[in-house]
């Protein structure tokens, strides 16, 4: 079971969160061609590595968090609010 350190609520059990998918595959711009949207919706890498993902803290602060989790060990190396994640370069 994951224990996620929510920046607002502290360390909480996975059951309080809802997984919202790959945070490394941002939604294309609204006027992007269909091919980009098809890639966004259907094409996902399945890395054995660090993976950025969205977790929504539905049973807590209801904030969206960007979590970096290792898919092999489940280790979590960073948790930031989605708003802060956006300000980071890259």
């Amino acid at each position, binding site marked *: 079971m*994951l224990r996620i350190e929510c920046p607002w609520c502290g360390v909480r059990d996975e059951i309080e969160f809802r997984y*919202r998918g790959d945070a490394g595959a941002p939604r294309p711009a609204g006027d992007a061609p269909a091919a980009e949207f098809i890639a966004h919706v259907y094409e996902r890498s399945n890395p054995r590595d660090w993976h950025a993902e969205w977790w929504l803290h539905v049973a807590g602060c209801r904030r969206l968090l960007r979590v970096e989790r290792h898919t092999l060990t489940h280790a979590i190396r960073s948790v930031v609010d*989605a708003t802060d994640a956006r300000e980071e370069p890259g």
Partner: protein
Amino acid sequence: MSGPARIGAGSDTDAAAKLRFRFDDRPMQGLAGDTLASALLANGVRVVARSFKYHRPRGPLTCGPEEPNALVDVIGAMGREPNRLATTLALHEGLEAQSQNRWPSLRTDLLAVNDRLARFLPAGFYYKTFMAPGWAWERLYEPLIRRAAGFGRIAPPRHGGANAHHGACAETVHDHCDVLVVGAGAAGLAGAHALAVAGLRVLLVEQQPAFGGGARLDASGQAWCDSMCAALRRFGNLRCLPGTTLVGAYGHGVYAALQDSTSEAAAAGRGLRERLRVIRARRVLFATGAVERLVAFPGNDRPGVMLAGAALNYLRRFGVAVGQRPAWFLNNDEAYESALALHEAGVECAGIIDARTHSLAAERARTAGIAVHLGAVVDAVHGGNAVSGLRYRDLRGGEVRRLRADCLLVSGGYSPSTALACQAGASLQWQQRIAAFVPQLAPETGQVAGAARGVFGLAAAALDGAGAARRIAGQLQSIAGPARTDAAPQPPLPPDPEATDLVPLWEVAGRGKSFVDLQNDVTADDVRLAAREGYTHVEHMKRYTTHGMGADQGRTGGLVGSAVLADALGVPVEQVGQSKPRPYAQPVPLAALAGAETGAHFKPKRRLPLHDWHEAAGATFVSIGTWLRPLVYSARKGWEPVLAEARHVRGQVGITDVSTLGKIDVQGADAARFLDFIYANTFSTLPVGRARYGLMLREDAMVFDDGTTSRLGPNHFLVTTTTANATAVLEHMEFHLQANCTRLDVHLTDVSERWAQFAVAGPQARAVLSAVASGLDLSNAAFPFMAAATATIAGLPGRLFRISFSGELAYEIAVPAGAATAVWSALLEAGAPHGIRPYGLDALNTLRIEKGHVTGAELNGNTSADDLGFQRLLKSDGDFIGRALARRPALAAPGRLQLVGVRPVDPARRLRNGAQLVTATEPKLSLGYLTSATPAVAFEGWAGLALLADGRARIGERLQASSPVHGESIEVSIVSPHMYDPENRRVRG
């Protein structure tokens, strides 16, 4: 003396407290503190089970949870429970146990013929034998295999049992601590003590009812253990949980343990049996000890063949001698302890066969007067239902000798119990000194100490445990409480005796079956067969032979199987490794996982604000998700009460409770922009005081949800969702707001439970509302269809919407949930002159099907806006979720299933949900299917909605609605889904 084999007092048993029990209907006596296995052995019972595949007679191999053989059915207040371990099952007065997997009896088992047929039943024989014909698997092979294989039988209690009186038999408890110490042997006790002294919050779990582990088998160890336990009890920051087995490590410091609560529950008069403990710990200290290994040699499964350490346990803890003339076969010094102990207790020892050529312990045994044969191995066991003797062979000269013995005590060395540490992420290293793997754990997870990492001997293990504890305490200094300087230092254990190293010993070749897994009847030959057939990876070998897949997880023979495989492949055993252990480390009853969440507590129930009113009005309730909703206001079954309610709405006026709708309050300067992005249609153009139907797509352009959204102010909207998607839509909106619309000024608030909402529908609806909504002109011009306003209703502040799901002139009234009863009553009173009556979910469904409104059956995740006839709603400019993929050519391609209405040609015939639409000429080619069906009230006969290939182009055609499960096929007309008032005259009236 409670059994002929009870030769003295045991540390666990109370000679004064005799208990009666029954095994296979035979009455026997045991002592308080006995396990079922120790009591059976005390009574001279050797055969306690038949084996899984070959139905060979079996007796206990071990004295603990690693037991592969001694599984029994227990018949008690909880019903008949299979697969309980006799070696851990505490004896109690009146215990009734039965042996498993034998027919008709333990002594004469007809399926023991499998043993003779063994050469036709090799590993993988299911896959090879039961191949053809295809039909035979389900009807012939599987029932036969199910009868022959498997273990016990499960059955509910005969007369309701404990469950009926006390509710759930299990519960879940959550624990938090700084350090979890697993195992209370020498290493665990010393470690827990050091951690508690350091001021950390410690939780110590031990699967045995008493602490001490190996320390309890020795007088000086027992004294140390007693003083340690007394010291531990004085710490306020340490909790002890005996009888608690750690069953899983789940990462992030989360562990699960199963606590046996039978004795505690019996004392409290409750039916509680297990407690599942979910433990969250910053660090873990695994002091899980080691498990003695068996050796694969022909006949190593005969009743009477037992692990040497088990014999020592039975003697010291229960006062039971496992044989009158035991012999030993071993390769290590530790195992000599059982020989010395039994000899000292006056048991005649037949002799010790040691595979090594020299040993310090052998010299001690000879001095004591026990015959030791060095450099020899056992290659045959004589006897059927009990050992009568053995044959051993000199490794150098090859001479063969025989020894008369009634039991054979085996030891192939000790394997650290690494399963839990591995689950927690430990890696394994081979240690040649003990011929076993030891775990290495990342320090940020915890430490492994004592025999669990190959440090054998009580004194050495205690020292190791204290050392590991200090390393953990060093890391957790910052969070520790004040150190307990007042704690008295504990005296050390006496030094461990010097020992000669073991020599690896895995298998002795010979005629007959040499088992590597007794529970699943896997032999060394099976492992070699797997290797020959290409299953050379230990995980493949495991799955092909089932080695280690039993409830005991092959603890006693796991490494032996790996060694046999390594030998077959010509590689060292460390290269083959061990199969990966997964939770659960011990069998866990499903009831323990369910805990108290059974019956009425299986899921929470949400009751409407008006629940009591509905109940008093005679409603039949239906469970929709977590909600309880009134289905129909009648106890009568069948359509008539439903249709009466629906007719009343069409003809006069009805009122229904729609409070379960999801309601999301959307506010902020960018609220309209945000809704334009979330919905496929436009909301920025919606005037204040108006409502609009909204269609929400997923990014893949399938319809996600629909509902009515009203603009209450320039920057204030109220979104309603379907009941089923209330949670999902809120999460969807929150996700997109925070992930994709971060610059928008929008606030989302879930107000679903704040507002009760009722629909008043029917030709008289305006007359009813006019009487209660004061100060509001409800004329068609002033408050037209799709108008929305705040309003005072029955003197209370509320909201009024002119929206309709039924297809009639209708209003929805929203009031704060606390005012629900007052307003509902006022509406009923105002409606009384017009004959208002409540209608339930079924009537609502009838009305919406006639009208052609879609709901969950049509919004099934596979339907696009175009499929449902909503293509015109999609806005042509601006971005919204689903926009790009809605233009995929495939969604406009011929053959898409489109929404249509369906009516039987013969109005006397009924429609059925799920019926397939076919042509009369091709009755097996499905063109679509019915999603909803109801008897109609607006016209004669039934009405249905369907998803039909190119449906819109087929309107006017006739097809067959075929329901093979009902043996029916009826002719139907394909019509527009809007079967009632397609011009919307009534809703606008």
